[in-house]
């Protein structure tokens, strides 16, 4: 029961407190690039969640059964980039063949994620945080959902900005960045929530 509670906390921490986009500022590129329309933002969020889960499932064993025995922990970054990039390509090929419907929905986003820093970040952080395999997967799921949440929320914010008369110098990216910082500030309110809950 205590363990289940801990897993839930890891999940929720990934979604809210340690939101990768809004608190750790990872994965900003797709966050700004694909958040113009709700549908696209949602598709991208789902694709990132999926890739995070698969990437964690592959990189975790690689780290502990290939790098640790050879004392090559410092290779993790470059090895993970390599493996994740290849993996995403592989998943795309397989999806195209066997689940064309899912490929049609996610296919456009998959190449964008090949070297996404949020995906790399979550795999590296899982190891730094000392999670075991199950905890790593739960954490990846949480971070993925957090990314999805941030994308969907921000797509809503952006659709409002589009219709507002911004000053000439702020039009386009500047006003989007300001909006992103305000959304990020809002998420700052979640920090410390779990410490209070646990105490």
């Amino acid at each position: 029961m205590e363990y289940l509670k801990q897993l839930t906390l890891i999940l929720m921490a990934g979604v809210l407190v340690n939101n990768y986009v809004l608190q750790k500022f990872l994965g900003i590129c797709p966050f700004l690039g694909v958040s113009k329309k709700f549908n696209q933002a949602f598709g991208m969020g789902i694709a990132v969640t999926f890739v995070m889960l698969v990437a964690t499932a592959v990189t975790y064993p690689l780290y502990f059964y290939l790098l640790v025995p050879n004392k090559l922990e410092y290779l993790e970054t470059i090895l993970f980039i390599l493996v994740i990039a290849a993996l995403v390509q592989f998943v795309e090929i397989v999806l195209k063949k066997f689940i064309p419907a899912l490929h049609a929905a996610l296919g456009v986003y998959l190449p964008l994620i090949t070297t996404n820093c949020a995906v790399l970040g979550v795999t590296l952080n899982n190891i730094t945080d000392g999670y075991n395999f199950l905890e790593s997967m739960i954490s990846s799921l949480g971070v993925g959902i957090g990314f999805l949440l941030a994308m969907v929320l921000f797509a809503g914010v952006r659709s409002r900005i589009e219709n507002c008369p911004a000053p000439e110098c702020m039009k386009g990216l500047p006003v989007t960045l300001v909006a992103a910082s305000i959304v990020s500030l809002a998420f700052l309110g979640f920090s410390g929530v779990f410490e209070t809950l646990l105490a």
Partner: protein
Amino acid sequence: MEILIPVLILLATAVICAVLLTVASIFFAVKENEKFAPIRECLPGANCGACGYSGCDSYAKALAEGEETNPSLCIPGGDGTAKNVAAILGVEAADVVERVAYVACNGACRPEEKKYIYTGPKTCHAANMSFSGDRFCIYACLGYGDCMKACPRGAIEINENGVADINPTKCIGCGICVDVCPNGLIHLIKDTERVVVKCNSRKKGADVRKYCSNGCIACGKCVKNCPEGAITLVDNLAVIDYDKCTGCGTCKDVCPVGCIHEGCFLCGSHFE
């Protein structure tokens, strides 16, 4: 020598990944219909949806796989595209009915004055939600340019009367603007149709006169004078039946307010 192990491990991983991807791309290769690529080449790539499919890709796919048999659905591409596609498919191409959009409003309802000061989001859709917009005429073009933003070819501009103006030489007849306009002011006409009523007001003539010098007042002169009997009054608005209309232009001459427009603004090959 110590450096060899990490190098080898990385190299091995890279080679394994490369082999895996190569094998996967051979074994899991998806056969694309060989007709798809050439058909897609022929289509203009505007992704306007005038053919009834979500984009050029899906129309080309439907054609290649035989789900769609009509090669003449692409309106922006016109006859040329239809012929090329038909040649690839080995069928006969029917003539494409080229269409063009026009805005059924002249915007003469006191464009300089507004019913109230509207400060909301600058879109027609939003403005229309508060008392049918800030124009005196509730049927008028609101001029916030929803259609302008939606137009894939940049054919629409807002003119000095605050009314959307469609450039027929740029318009590809896709009909996206027709769905966007909250007042339903934009209509598509075929290239053979030459007379249009540029008003959408269903108000009585006396009411229209109060604010618009250019709106249909439902006087019925065009109805009486049309030699073909092609015009009828529906809800205080002259409506042309294009099956009967010969484009003689009599209605334009008798219209006291000048809201019927005639012109060869559709002739010529405006899709080039």
